[in-house]
């Protein structure tokens, strides 16, 4: 077994195409997770009790089952009831909903960590509910959330190879098909690892920076 730079050169364009899809799926998945998480968090915090309970159950259910199973369900089972989604869309929805449950928990903790006195001070200075959220609660709740959210973003990025199971042509899937058709695994798989490592290292430095910037604890 020998490392073949010629082969590397030859497969690089295809792998980079895959990397693009991986990054795209991560970004879209993160956007969906951020929005879905917000909906979950709000439902759990302010909806009438039966709806809040149902949401809590759904969140536990989603977290308690593997992402891979959920992806199969969205891509291969939903068509049985007439919902046919392109692979990438199914993948983004799967990632988004799965990580949305984690985002919801981060939101909830962030908001509940704002002391009750802040709500009371806002009321005593006669701010409306909207003004209280925008000017008092969210500016205090969001900064401590950022490192935790970024952590999940990195975790989600590293889980995108699961999308290869539902035919999304992301990095892992491209590498696999190159390997299968050329009977050479060492170069494509090594490169997949290297790509992920580079991206993760960049993310980790970024995360450190975010933590230093936002995670300090303010007094009330």
């Amino acid at each position, binding site marked *: 077994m020998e490392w073949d730079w010629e082969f590397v050169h030859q497969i690089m364009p295809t792998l980079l195409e895959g990397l693009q899809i991986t990054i795209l799926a991560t970004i879209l998945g993160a956007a969906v997770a951020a929005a879905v998480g917000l909906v979950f968090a709000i439902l759990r915090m302010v909806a009438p009790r039966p709806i809040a309970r149902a949401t809590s159950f759904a969140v536990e259910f989603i977290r308690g089952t593997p992402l891979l199973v959920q992806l199969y369900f969205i891509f291969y089972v939903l068509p049985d009831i007439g919902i046919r989604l392109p692979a990438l869309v199914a993948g983004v929805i799967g990632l988004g909903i799965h990580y949305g449950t984690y985002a919801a928990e981060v939101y909830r903790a962030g908001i509940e960590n704002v*002391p009750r006195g802040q709500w*009371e*001070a806002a009321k*005593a200075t*006669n701010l409306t509910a909207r003004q209280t959220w925008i*000017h008092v609660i969210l*500016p205090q709740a969001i900064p401590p959330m950022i490192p935790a959210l970024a952590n999940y973003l990195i975790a989600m990025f590293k889980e995108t190879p699961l999308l290869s199971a539902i035919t999304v042509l992301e990095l892992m899937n491209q590498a696999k098909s190159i390997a299968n058709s050329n009977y050479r695994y060492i170069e494509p798989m090594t490169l997949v690892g290297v790509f992920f490592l580079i991206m993760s290292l960049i993310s980790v430095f970024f995360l450190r920076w975010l933590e230093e910037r936002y995670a300090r604890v303010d007094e009330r």
Partner: protein
Amino acid sequence: MSEPIIRIDNIVKRYGPLTVLDGLSMEVLPGEKLALIGPSGSGKTTILRILMTLETISDGFIQVDGEQLYHMKKAGSLIAADERHLHKMREKIGMVFQHFNLFPHKCVLDNVTLAPMLTKGIARAAAEKRAMELLDMVGLADKAKSMPAQLSGGQKQRVAIARALALSPKIMLFDEVTSALDPELVEEVLNVMRKLAAETDMTMLLVTHEMGFAHDFADRVLFFDRGKIVEEGKPADIFRHPKQERTQTFLRKIIAAGHRV
């Protein structure tokens, strides 16, 4: 004799099975300085929180400045107040908290200007001018750009007083405003309040364990125990010649605990 600015009529406050206020009635005249004293759990802080609409009442009526606080007229009958009515009523009332509750992400100046700009639509320049006057009054004009975390407890509380005053309420509620302070910082806050009492005709309700201050500050003292007013009167009468046994016991304990009268 003028009309009371606050008229509390037979209010009941329950938390689950616990009844905190049980048919309480009292009146406060415009400009009056009232001290509410009593053991913890006697309901005195609850009254301030109810007036600030931080708590709701289980039963009864409260009239503030000629209008019902928790009720409003609709088609001739009295119904529960909606958020809009409460919002309008809150304009009349300001509150200073035991734990200051400054907005930690905003500088001192922004703490004071935030609400006037948002709730009264006052332009930034005008709001800042007024805020600087108030900060000057509480002796903190030089701290306008500081963040709350950089201030001592006494300074924070003085900013909180300026923040409440910036909305020009008719009634100010002070909820144990010196209880969370180190002893050496108590006096600077009390001095601001003395100045305020002397210079304005605002109605002030004060819940306190500082008996000496209550004595000097208040026109009238109410002694609370178990959700009821046990005794009320002029400070000199309540502190020197309490009639009720429960008042006597309470004052004895407070003095034994090292508070001066």
